[in-house]
């Protein structure tokens, strides 16, 4: 088993603490190691975008164990997450190829540039998606932002799905995590109807406490 990155001096009042969902993504990448090592991306050096990097554990794990020669952009709305992600990576892996930016989904990324996108979204059904806090008194909101995804837990994921085809390179792929209440099978079917240039499939699923989590691969064929 590949070692899980350590997170130096995390502040879990302000960033999301890695949990079952994060570890499912790590396990998926470990199980797909040979797939990624033999995968031909559109460029020799793939560009990896992680959205909502939080502690940075996922970017760090992929950089350290799966694709050490890729370029990484780990993004988050939360500035504390950006700093933590860089620290986590530096404590575990090479930092020559890793950067972090504050960004909303894919809005600042060059179109058709991302070869691998990873997103552990705020998938928990909740009344509403919280606003980005503006004062330091509201900073406890950061953890809610990492979790709460609106009535079906799909508000933020749906927004990302709308920009996915424009963001990924040809042969690029996205890995997105869902819980059962997001109705991921229906989401995948609908996405393929709207975007016939994509192949979408479930690549791993697991019962975690009272949740059933799954990860889907969105592969852009053309």
């Amino acid at each position: 088993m590949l070692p899980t990155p350590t997170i130096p001096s995390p502040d879990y009042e302000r960033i999301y603490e890695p949990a079952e969902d994060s570890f499912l993504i790590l396990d998926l990448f470990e199980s797909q190691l040979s797939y990624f090592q033999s995968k031909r991306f559109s460029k020799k050096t793939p560009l990896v975008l992680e959205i909502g990097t939080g502690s940075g554990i996922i970017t760090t794990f992929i950089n350290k164990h799966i694709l050490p020669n890729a370029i990484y952009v780990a993004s988050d709305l939360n500035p504390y997450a950006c700093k933590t992600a860089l620290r986590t990576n530096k404590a575990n892996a090479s930092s020559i190829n890793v950067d972090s930016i504050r960004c909303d989904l894919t809005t600042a990324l060059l179109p058709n540039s991302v070869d691998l996108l990873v997103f552990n979204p705020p998938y928990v059904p909740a009344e509403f998606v919280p606003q980005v806090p503006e004062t330091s008194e509201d900073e406890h909101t950061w953890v809610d932002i990492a979790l709460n995804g609106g009535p079906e837990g799909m508000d933020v994921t749906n927004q990302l799905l709308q920009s996915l085809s424009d963001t990924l390179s040809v042969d690029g792929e996205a890995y997105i995590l869902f819980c059962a209440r997001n109705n991921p099978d229906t989401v995948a079917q609908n996405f393929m109807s709207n975007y016939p240039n994509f192949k979408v499939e479930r690549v791993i699923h697991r019962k975690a406490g009272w949740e059933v989590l799954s990860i889907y691969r969105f592969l852009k064929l053309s």
Partner: protein
Amino acid sequence: MKFLTSNFVMCAVKSCAGSDKSFPLHFSECKLELEEQDFNPDFIISMLERLNWDAVLSVAKDLGNTSLPVQKPENIEGNEVLLKDLHSLLLETQIVEGKMTCGNCQHIYYIKDSIANFLLPPHLAN
């Protein structure tokens, strides 16, 4: 923000997406630091393929570096001097503070404490 990242980011305003002036962003009032990294020539050689060289030149010029070759260098395996220059510019140069301006809508994005902020104010958010 690493110099390298400037090659992959553009203005986040939706109506700038189709404009060729929204990339690369224009850098000004930048404070730079050199963050030492392990030298990995193979990584630089393979990464060069995907870089937009005109954007590299533009950002380098914004930061006061006009010494780069006008054309994207090729076959640089044995050219240790150039490889070290690219290593230091693209991978070690940290923009610690600064402004990035969109050439289309003139919106200014700020870099603070090495983190570039591409969040838009509500009236510009998509």
